[in-house]
């Protein structure tokens, strides 16, 4: 696997990890525990992918990359079939969709990597070294794309909605009283022109 693709893998893993962590506060406990562990694992895996010459645990990683997408799809089907929207409503569409794009990318790259390794008869083929200029341009393009997709995804989570817009701290933002349901509803947000 080329160094450039490995940096993209690292960025997408960290991007997906951040999105999953941002979903923790809006989710009921069982889902929150899963997205918390998933987010931490993805960020740790992304950092190791950057810092090492090889891709850590590619088989496990490809399974973990696909699993959230399957579980989310299953949850949506069950929620629709049972007419119980509350089952899936803690996982909003936009952040989950963008995290899924990252996961599918990672799964596709890992599958190609594993197939090449098997065909070459080696556990991990020697990484190809691009020219420094190409490497830097590729890395920055990946960082820009992942950043551009992760930012709106984070903004669409409850964690993002809690963040103070434009760094202003005024009295316009009052979190709703907790009704004990474990979900955050009825939050009053300041309008853009309020501050």
């Amino acid at each position: 696997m080329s160094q450039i693709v490995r940096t993209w893998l690292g960025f997408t893993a960290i991007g997906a990890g951040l999105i999953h962590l941002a979903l923790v506060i809006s989710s009921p406990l069982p889902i929150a525990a899963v997205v918390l562990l998933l987010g931490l694992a993805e960020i740790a895996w992304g950092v190791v992918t950057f810092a090492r010459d090889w891709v850590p645990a590619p088989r496990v990683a490809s399974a973990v990359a696909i699993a959230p997408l399957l579980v989310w799809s299953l949850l949506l089907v069950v929620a629709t079939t049972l007419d119980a929207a509350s089952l899936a409503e803690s996982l909003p569409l936009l952040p989950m969709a963008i995290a899924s794009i990252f996961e599918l990318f990672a799964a596709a790259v890992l599958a190609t990597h594993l197939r090449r390794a098997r065909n070459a008869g080696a556990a991990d083929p020697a990484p190809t070294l691009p020219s420094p200029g190409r490497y830097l341009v590729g890395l920055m393009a990946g960082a820009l794309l992942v950043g551009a997709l992760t930012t709106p995804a984070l903004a669409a989570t409850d964690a993002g909605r809690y963040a103070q817009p434009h760094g202003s701290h005024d009295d316009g933002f009052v979190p709703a009283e907790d009704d004990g349901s474990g979900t955050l509803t009825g939050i009053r947000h300041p309008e853009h022109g309020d501050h």
Partner: protein
Amino acid sequence: MTKSPNRMLATVFGVVYLLVGLLGFTVTGGVSFFDTSGGLLLGLFEVNVFHNVAHLLIGAALLIAGLSNVAAARAVNIGIGAAYLLLGIAGLFLIGTELNILAINAADNVLHFASAAVLLAVGLGADKKVRAVTA
């Protein structure tokens, strides 16, 4: 320099940050050293005099390391990348407070995070064989 991503990045970022530091002084006339609100560089990034001086120092460190050798470039890229990451996170809490002695605004935070991502990714990810040889 053209064979090492770390040296290339440190040199390019060094030149850019030196230019940004110099350009900053064109919008900070009348702004005091630690002013919590400064001038807008490129109409977007808020800077005060301290912020400009920090840009000049960072640019100089990166440029010197980039022109020196791979080990120095890697170390400075990782060090400044980590510092930018911490500053990016701290900046989220500093905006609007009296402790905002760098006159940071939201656009600055985005740029700090982006710089941190690129510097750390290249510092940690590239030129590993060189580290093995020089270590």
